[in-house]
């Protein structure tokens, strides 16, 4: 049973992360007061992990562990929840030029949901592409809060949500162990498996939650060292 879930993070299965899944879980256990998470969704880059079985780790740490993917399209990066064999046969997830509209339509038809992430980011976010191309049909929600964003990138998303009525969710986009859960999503209903996650993401009843703790500003002395 989970209500607060980090919907976007990368483990060592992604080419640009070295974080083992268990290290993430241990970090969450340690940071429970600061980041009260009930679960995580592993969203590896350009692939879907069909082989790992996390049931033992779920029991050991009392956290829900689900699997999804982050793929690349001409409208930017998209998180795909509810990945199944039919989707993997339909799309080559390693293709960095997937067609966003086709992906959204087909993922929905095949029982999942495809949701654009970090929409405020240059080139790989939705907003920039909406300036030059027609908006996508069938988008239900976007990642309004991403833990890896630069200044301004999350802030740009509010207007997109207002205009198109998208649901908003959050994720850490962690590539390092210590960033797991800094941003997450709070659901109104309990999620216990991928099917319920997909259903909830489609229908709404969730919001991004921000657990980032800003360090007090430090003014370094002049000089390089």
């Amino acid at each position, binding site marked *: 049973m989970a209500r607060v879930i980090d919907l976007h993070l990368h483990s060592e299965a992604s080419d640009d992360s070295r974080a083992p899944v268990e290290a993430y879980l241990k970090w969450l256990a340690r940071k429970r007061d600061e980041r009260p998470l009930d679960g995580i969704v592993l969203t590896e880059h*350009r692939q879907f992990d069909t082989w790992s079985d996390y049931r033992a780790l779920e029991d050991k740490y009392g956290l829900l562990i689900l699997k999804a993917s982050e793929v690349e399209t001409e409208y930017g990066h998209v998180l795909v929840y509810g990945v199944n064999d039919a989707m993997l046969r339909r799309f080559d997830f*390693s293709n*960095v030029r997937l067609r966003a509209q086709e992906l959204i339509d087909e993922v929905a038809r095949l029982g999942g949901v495809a949701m654009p992430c970090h929409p405020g980011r240059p*080139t*790989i976010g939705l907003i920039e592409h909406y300036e030059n191309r027609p908006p996508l049909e069938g988008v239900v929600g976007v990642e309004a809060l991403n833990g890896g964003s630069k200044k301004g990138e999350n802030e740009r998303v509010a207007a997109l949500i207002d205009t198109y009525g998208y649901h908003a969710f959050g994720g850490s986009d962690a590539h390092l162990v210590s960033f797991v859960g800094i941003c997450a999503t709070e659901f109104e209903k309990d999620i216990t498996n991928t099917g319920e996650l997909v259903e909830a993401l489609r229908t709404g009843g969730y919001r991004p939650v921000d657990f980032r703790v800003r360090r007090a500003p430090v003014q370094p002395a002049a000089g390089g*060292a």
Partner: protein
Amino acid sequence: MALEFDRSILGQVFDETDFPPVEKADLLQFADALGETNPLYTDETVAANGPYGGLVAAPTYVTRLRPKKMTPEHMPRFGKVGFDGGRDVEIFAPVRPGDRLKMVSTIHDIYEKTGRSGSMYFIVLRNEITNQDGQQVAIVDHRIMQR
């Protein structure tokens, strides 16, 4: 969908460089340029009683070693400009004054992804460094981003 290029270039040695003996002054200067305060890299006397029994180079000194040919002659070009995407350094043995280092360079990997600045191609150059005793010193993987 795999990126298309001649995969036979992977692993082929494109450069072998023998460096002149490492000078103590060079190690000290390098540490100083980083603002290093660790006496193992900055203070010969303290370092003599330390775990290495003498002054050694700051850990990233091996990244300053540059092959004669920076890139292979037949390196695929996927973009107009190249940037440093990152480094991965494995360190097996310290660099000491007087070491005669040798570096062998290969193209280790090539892949594509999309990022803040558009389509990006990564070429990973691998530099394997050994010393005069044939001992492995470090492997430096250099991820060059082209776009």
